[in-house]
């Protein structure tokens, strides 16, 4: 084995010289954590951040608790959270006012998802110059992701609409993603659970012998070096926009290169892994729970500390027949006061919550260092729209789950000042994970009251 490794490096270097390229060795720093996995090294459990998005708003009458503070009762939609009531904060009056039209006319759905984690009013365009802001998960991923194989994972149960307009005048990119790696690069989710599983646990390589695996890694490394060099050369021959496209390619290839240097099997042994089907389950609950399971697995194996999950594309018109709702979700959300439609919407809202409760229950029951996974996490659940009928972006439905290793004191309903920027919450989160940030979107300071002392 050690022979092979020596040979490997020699060959690779010889190969590079043969190409006449003056190559840096960008992999060296990445190899260090690969050799001694972060999971083994750490003494204190890291904080994980998760973001779960639901489209089309919720029926706020069924969501907002009547009482503030710790002595509140879970309203209808939140009832499934009974088992984790002491681990969540119901946050009222947070707003994403940059999702308002602000002179841009229709398109509240596209704006709602684009603003949700960025706090930035997106540029209205059907294609050219797609722009919002870097999202909170990606700021955290830049920081936390250095220690893990994947800086972040983006998941969805409803991959993008296939064609046509998603929301008047807005490219579908805005409705399909809540995560934005940069202000011009949306980060759409993977919708195939099998593909997520294979990514985490070796996929096509897992049946290979260690030797064959190693050789494959070497070859892939050489291919990546080659294409990186090609793309760099191309940079000099392109105009500014094309160069940006090539930078996107370079970044993507570098990320793959980094993953290659982490051993994908590192800490997976002995974990209970879900039985992952080849394609997405038809049943919504089964599908969503699988995606939650995969997030837990990724946290447990410390392959990533940041996840985002869309429980539906913004503006989704899915028919939730699992709970006997025949109309499409978006179609129903413009209920015009129709009580039957409102009841159906509550059924959908609660159904989503049942799946999220499953996730939190499992997080709470998963050991992690000196506590549970939920103790060491902060998971935000919400929508960029409160009332789907009028496309309101104030007083959003927001839950904050977990304790962020003690930084947050859950078990309360907190009513913030009217129209408090949701982005303020993100500043708190970034501070908890050791990545203090001054501004994010329309933030105007951190939230008070989340920690025990200030409650």
């Amino acid at each position, binding site marked *: 084995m050690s022979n092979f490794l020596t040979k490997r490096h020699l060959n690779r270097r010889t190969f590079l010289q043969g190409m006449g390229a003056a190559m840096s060795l960008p992999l060296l720093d990445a190899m260090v954590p690969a050799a001694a996995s972060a999971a083994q090294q750490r003494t204190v459990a890291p904080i994980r951040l998760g973001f779960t998005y639901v489209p089309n708003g919720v029926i706020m009458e069924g969501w907002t608790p009547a009482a503030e503070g710790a002595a509140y009762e879970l309203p209808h939609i939140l009832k499934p959270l009974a088992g984790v009531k002491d681990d969540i904060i119901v946050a009222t009056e947070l707003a994403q006012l940059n999702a308002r039209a602000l002179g841009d006319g229709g398109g509240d759905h596209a704006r709602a998802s684009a603003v949700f984690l960025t706090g930035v009013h997106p540029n209205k365009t*059907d294609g050219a110059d797609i722009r919002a802001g870097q999202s909170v998960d990606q700021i955290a991923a830049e920081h936390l992701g250095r220690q893990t194989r994947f800086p972040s994972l983006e998941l969805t149960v409803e991959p993008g609409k296939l064609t046509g307009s998603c929301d008047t*005048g807005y490219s*579908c990119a805005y409705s399909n993603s809540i995560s934005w790696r940069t202000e011009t690069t949306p980060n759409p989710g993977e919708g195939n659970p099998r593909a997520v599983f294979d*990514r985490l646990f070796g996929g096509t390589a897992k049946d290979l012998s260690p030797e064959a695996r190693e050789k494959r890694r070497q070859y892939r490394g050489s291919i990546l070096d*080659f294409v990186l060099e090609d793309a760099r050369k191309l940079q000099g021959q*392109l105009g500014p926009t094309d160069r940006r496209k090539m930078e996107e390619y370079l970044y993507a290839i570098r990320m793959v290169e980094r993953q290659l240097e982490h051993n994908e099997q590192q800490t997976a042994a002995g974990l209970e892994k879900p039985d992952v089907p080849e394609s997405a389950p038809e049943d919504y609950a089964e599908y969503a729970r699988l995606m939650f399971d995969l997030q837990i697995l990724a946290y447990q194996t410390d392959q990533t500390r940041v996840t985002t999950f869309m429980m539906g594309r913004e503006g989704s018109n899915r028919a939730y027949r699992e709970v006997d709702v025949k109309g499409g979700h978006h179609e129903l959300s413009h209920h015009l006061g129709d009580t039957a439609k409102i009841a159906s919407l509550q059924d959908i809202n609660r159904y989503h919550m049942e799946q999220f409760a499953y996730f939190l229950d499992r997080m709470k029951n998963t050991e992690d260092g000196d506590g549970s996974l939920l103790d060491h996490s902060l998971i935000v659940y919400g929508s960029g729209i409160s009332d789907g009928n009028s496309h309101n972006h104030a007083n959003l439905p927001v839950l904050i789950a977990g304790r962020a290793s003690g930084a947050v004191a859950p078990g309360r309903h907190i009513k913030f000042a009217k129209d408090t920027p949701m982005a303020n919450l993100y500043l708190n989160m970034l501070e908890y994970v050791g990545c203090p940030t001054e501004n994010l979107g329309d933030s105007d300071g951190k939230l008070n009251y989340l920690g025990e002392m200030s409650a």
Partner: protein
Amino acid sequence: MNIQSMQEGIWRGRRRRWVTGVGFLVLGATLVGEGCQSVPTTGDASAAKGASPNADVMAGFFSTHCYDCHGAERQKGGYDFQTLMETDGRITDTALMELVMRVVSTGEMPPGKRPQPEPEEVTALLDALRHDQEMQIAAIAPDPGRVTVRRLNRMEYNNTVRDLLGVESQPSDAFPPDDTGYGFDTIGDVLTLSPLLAEKYLDAAEGIAKEAVTREVAIYDKSMAMHRKVLVCNHAREAHTERCADRIIRELTPRAYRRPATREELDQIRGFYQLAIDNGDTFYDGIELVVQALLVSPHFLFRIEEEKALEDPEHEYRVNNYEYASRLSYFLWSSMPDDELMACAQDGTIWHPRTLRDQVRRMLRDPRAASLAESFGGQWLEIRNLAVADPDPEKFPEFDDGLRLAMAEETNLFFGSIIAEDRSVLDFIDADYTYVNEPLAALYGIDGIVGPAFQRVPVNREERGGILGQASVLTVTSYPARTSPVLRGVWILDKILAAEPPPPPPDVPALEEAQVDPTATFREKLEAHRDNASCASCHDRIDPLGFGLENYGPIGGWRADADGKPVDSSGVLPDGRTFAGPGELKKILLERKTDFARCLTEKMLTYGLGRGLEDYDAPAVAAIVGELEKNDYRFSALIYEIVRSLPFRKQRGEPEVS
């Protein structure tokens, strides 16, 4: 270009799309306002300035019929033609011009309760406006615009590995969906490349390389070299040598890059063969590694077009021969150029009009042109969304995956017949035939069709014929459990008439459900909201078109009754014209041939170029539409005019952002 002017450009483009979807704002028009960077014009710039030579005609019409509501005293809807005529002596905003032409020609304005203009007055006004519009378009400086480098989308990737390597396993089906812009997945700006996709590229490359080489090893002894795409040596299988590897690399690399490869590039690729051999691998392993590397190269994954204007961003230049060949092949085939097209690129004849015409004709007759129907058609008509259509299974138990596929196939075959037979594009609106198999025939109530194979059948034009009578279109414009005249009406305006209505205002007033009889039909309820003036201005245009299709149920079956009442598929257009049923609706749509021709041209040009259209594309669009009309609306004329248009042949430089 500074940021401000860029933003204005975007704003203009958006405005153009929103106001009517058809008008092109003239550069420097009043809408842009102060601070707009002037754009050099080469046409007769004076044509777009000063009073119109037809000012008298316009002022006469407007003062008689419009000033009362849209003049200095009152500006209903914010329109004041009096001030406009008195200060500018013309309508400079072409979107407004389009709007005026539309509402006057369709009789929307003046409203029915006001005295109506004589037909001659209307004709004179429309002629005057059309003349002005032509002058304004003529005054726009020719500008090819700039296309952002395009990554192969999923269909292009599948087709390209099929044509490059003979691999037909459709590996890109496992890739994340491509984002779309302007309704299409060919738009360079939105074709992003995530780390996830890069991982998939690497995995796919490995699988494809193995599949390609394994397949050719298996057939090697039985096949001639010319029938193999990778193992192109002539000698016996046992005799593979480094020289053979060299030859493979020399032939495969330019095909993968879709242009000649440099010596340095060939050396790089050869390095992979050598790497495998040095590690003790076989000849075939070495070739596989070569193929893998090629498939992850940016020269394969992107359609790179060499920037020739780095020093002079204002410069516009013709793309090179090979880039043009790729523009053609990806437009018509969603795939790489074949040997014949590459030969035309190599000797430069690809630019000769006769060769170009022959090549276009040849390419349209080639089976690969099915991709144009599937990709362009699937997106223009939005039938790609059939894959996620979700009709209520209780109401429509017959809707299974077989029927879902059959619906898409009908439209693909129909589109394919228009391409292959070079039919008139007006056949999209109305035709006397379609394609059905047994499940689809059952849905349509056509007897005597047995089995899963498709047959071309004549149809009764009152019921079927043309895309509006196809289950695919009718299903993707419906909700799971009911039809939506609004969605269907908007669909017709957007896909046929290039007149997509603006989005509803943000404060949509709630339907006063209480005032509507609970036993009313859905149509009656929907009509109630048109009593509200702010709804009526758009829904008077949208809803009647959708009502015309009410005889088609949510999955496109014909129905005489719905919810226990007879279907009312009559409509009243804003000009007071009435129709009953889809047959008459189609006749009315066919009267608007030019609108349809422009609509199709705009969509097809967007798709083919890979960018959204801008103000400066107006002359190109007008020229294509003009030629299309001259050539009896033949499909091949549309394609030929697009590929020889300025934006398709050329590229403009791009300034550095300071």
